[in-house]
C-alpha cells in the first residue's frame, strides 16, 4: 500500500468522490486555481471546471448557507472554511440551519453537506490561525463531527462524510497535513462515522484523544514502553459526534486509568464529555481519577515561538502525564 500524506489523502478523497458522483462539488475561498491556501483542493478546478471547484466571495455565512441550499436541492457540497478560526461567521447557518433541517421538517428535508475546516496550532499562525473550535459545535444535535489523525482515516472518513445523508463537520489538522503520512489503499474504502479505533494495545493506562496530540501519545507510549515498561492503550475517537460510547467504555475499562488529551482548551472540551461518560457508567472500574491534558484555558495561542511552545501539547508533556498516571 502506498504511503501518502494526510493532506494528499484529503485531496484524493475529494477527487475520487467528485469522479464518482457528479453531485459532489467543492466551494470556498481560493479553492480554485490556487487550490486552497494549504493545497487541499489542488488540481480540482483544472479537472472538474470552475463550477465544481468554486471560488466564492469572502463570506463564510454564504459559503455555508449556499451549500446548505444546494444540499437541500439534492447536491452534495463540500464547503471549505479556510481556517476553522474563520467558520464562526457561519455559526448561525451551521447550528440553526444545517443541524436542524431534518428534524424541523420531520424528515421531509435533509442537508447532506460536509464542512471542512483546518484546526490546530504549531504553525506560527497566532491567535486566529491556530484554534480548535470543536467545542463550540460539539453537543449540537443534528451535526456529525469527525477529526481524523491519520491519512488512512482522513481519506476514509471524508468519503464517508460526503456520502453521509446528514451534515458533517470535518476537522482536519493543519499540523498533520505534511507531518503525518501512512498507508492508504488505492481502492475505494470508507471509515465508518461514529467508530473509534484502538491505535495501540496496552494494559497499564488508557489514553483517549483525537487529532494531532495522539501522535505525541503514540511517541510517548513507545518511549514509556521501552524505558519504563509502561504499556499504554491508545484510543483514537476519530468521530467526536456521535461519540463511540462503547469504544470509550471498553478502552477505559481495559486499564482503569484514563488520560484524555486534546489540543482544544480543557474547560468545556470534548474531553469533559468523555470524562463524564466514564464517570457516569464506569465509576467502579476506575483505579485513578480521570485526568485531562488539554490546551490551557486561554483565548488562543500566541505567535511568538516560546509562547506557542508553552501553549501546545508535545511528546514530553504527554509522557510525563502518562507516567504519572501509570504510577498513581
Amino acid at each position, binding site marked *: 500500500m502506498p504511503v501518502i500524506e494526510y493532506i494528499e489523502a484529503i485531496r484524493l478523497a475529494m477527487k475520487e468522490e467528485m469522479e464518482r458522483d457528479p453531485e459532489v462539488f467543492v466551494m470556498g475561498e481560493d479553492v480554485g486555481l490556487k487550490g486552497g491556501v494549504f493545497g487541499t483542493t489542488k488540481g480540482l478546478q483544472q479537472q472538474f471546471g470552475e463550477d465544481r471547484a468554486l471560488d466564492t*466571495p469572502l463570506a463564510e*455565512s454564504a459559503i455555508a448557507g449556499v451549500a446548505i*441550499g444546494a444540499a437541500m436541492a439534492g447536491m452534495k457540497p463540500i464547503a471549505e472554511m479556510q481556517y476553522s478560526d474563520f467558520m464562526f461567521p457561519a455559526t448561525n447557518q451551521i447550528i440553526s*440551519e444545517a443541524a436542524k433541517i431534518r428534524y*424541523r*421538517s420531520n424528515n421531509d428535508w435533509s442537508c447532506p453537506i460536509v464542512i471542512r475546516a483546518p484546526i490546530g496550532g504549531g504553525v506560527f499562525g497566532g491567535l486566529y490561525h491556530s484554534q480548535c473550535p470543536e467545542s463550540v459545535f460539539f453537543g449540537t444535535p443534528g451535526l456529525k463531527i469527525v477529526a481524523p489523525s491519520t491519512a488512512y482515516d482522513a481519506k476514509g472518513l471524508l468519503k464517508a462524510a460526503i456520502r453521509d*445523508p446528514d451534515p458533517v463537520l470535518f476537522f482536519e489538522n493543519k499540523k498533520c497535513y505534511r507531518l503525518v503520512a501512512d498507508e492508504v489503499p488505492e481502492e475505494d474504502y470508507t471509515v465508518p462515522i461514529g467508530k473509534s479505533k484502538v491505535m495501540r494495545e496496552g494494559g497499564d493506562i488508557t489514553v483517549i484523544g483525537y487529532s494531532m496530540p495522539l501522535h505525541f501519545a503514540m511517541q510517548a507510549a513507545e518511549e514509556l514502553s521501552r524505558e519504563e515498561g509502561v504499556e499504554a492503550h491508545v484510543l483514537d475517537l476519530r468521530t467526536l459526534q456521535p461519540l463511540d460510547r462503547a469504544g470509550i467504555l471498553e478502552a477505559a475499562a481495559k486499564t482503569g486509568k484514563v488520560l484524555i488529551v486534546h489540543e482544544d482548551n480543557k474547560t468545556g472540551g470534548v474531553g469533559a464529555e468523555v470524562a463524564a461518560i466514564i464517570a457516569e457508567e464506569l465509576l467502579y472500574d476506575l483505579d485513578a481519577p480521570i485526568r485531562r491534558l488539554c490546551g490551557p484555558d486561554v483565548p488562543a495561542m500566541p505567535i511568538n515561538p516560546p509562547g506557542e511552545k508553552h501553549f501546545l501539547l508535545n511528546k514530553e508533556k504527554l509522557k510525563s502525564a502518562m507516567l504519572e498516571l501509570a504510577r498513581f
Partner: protein
Amino acid sequence: MTQTGTVRQNSRHAALGISDEKAVAMYEIMKLARMYDERGQLLQRAGKINFHISGITQEPSQTAMAFAMDRERDWFLPYYRDYALVLSVGMTVKELMLSIFAKAEDPNSAGRQMPGHFGCRRLRIVTGSSPVTTQVPHAVGFALAAKMRGEDAVSIVSFGEGSSNQGDFHEGLNFAGVQKLPVVFVCQNNQYAISVPFSKQSAGKIADRAIGYGFPGYRVDGNDPLEVYRVVKEARERAAAGEGPTLIEIMTYRVTAHSTSDNDLAYRTKEEVEIHKAKDGIPVYRRYLTELGLWSDEKEDELTRRLRAMIDEATEYAEKAPFQPPEDSFRYVYAEEGEAR
C-alpha cells in the same frame, strides 16, 4: 387599476398574459388567505391555539409573486407571513390548520415548528426556521444547484425589510450577483420590524441595494397585484435566461400587530394603521375584476360561503387530529437506519 370600461382583451391582466381564469384564481387565493388568517386570529383569541402571526394586507402581492413563477418547477422559500404564497403553490387550508394546531399530520413539521414555518418537499416549498434571513443564502444554493444541473428552475425567496439588514442578506445577494444565478429576492417592506419603524431600520431604499450587487432592484406597490406580477414575471424571465438575480421591494404595511403576542399600540397610533387599512389591495382588485365583468356580488357570496365551509372543515379536522406521539418527537435528528437521503 382604474381603467373602467376597458374591454377584457385590453385588460391589464391580459396584457400580462394572465388569462381571465387565472386572474380570478388569484383573487380567490387572496380571499382564502385573508379568511384563513382572520380565522387564525379568532382561534387564538378563543384560546384554541397559542399563537398566530398574520399576513393581512400582504396577500395580493404574495399571490402575485407565486402566480408569476412556474409553480411546477420553481423553488419557493417563503417567510412566516406568506400564507397566500404557499396557498398559491398548492398547500391546502387543512394543512395550514394542522400546522396552526401543531398536529402530527402537518406536512410542514408534524407540529414541531411554529405556524408560519413553512416547508413541503412535495410542493417545492423549502423548510424554514425562525432566525430571519437564513433562507436567503439557501435560495441562492437552490439557484446554484439549478444552474449546475442545467435545470430550468428559478428560486424565489421572501423576507421582511427588517430582515434585509442581516448579514445573510448581503452575503447571499452578493454571491448570487457574482454567479448570475436564477433567483428572485423579494423584500416585503411592511414598514415595521416588530416595533421598529422603517426609519430606524435603514436610511436607504432596500431596492437600491441591488445596485451594489450589479443587478436590478425595483420598488413596487404591494397593493397592486398586477404590477407585482409584472415585475416578478420579468425577474423570473431574466433569471431563466441566465441574466441573473433581481431584488424586488414590495411596499406594503403591516396592519395587524406583529403577532398575537404583540401590542402594537405601544409604539404606533391607531390612526396610522387606519390609513393603511384603507389602502387594502383586495377590495381594489375585486373592483377591478367586477368592472371587467369577471366578478360579481353573487360570486363573492358564493366564494365566501365555499371558503368558510372549507376553513370550518379544516379547523374541525385539525382540532381533532392527533399530536405527534411524544416518543416520536425525538426522531429524525439524523437519518434513520437504512435511509439514504
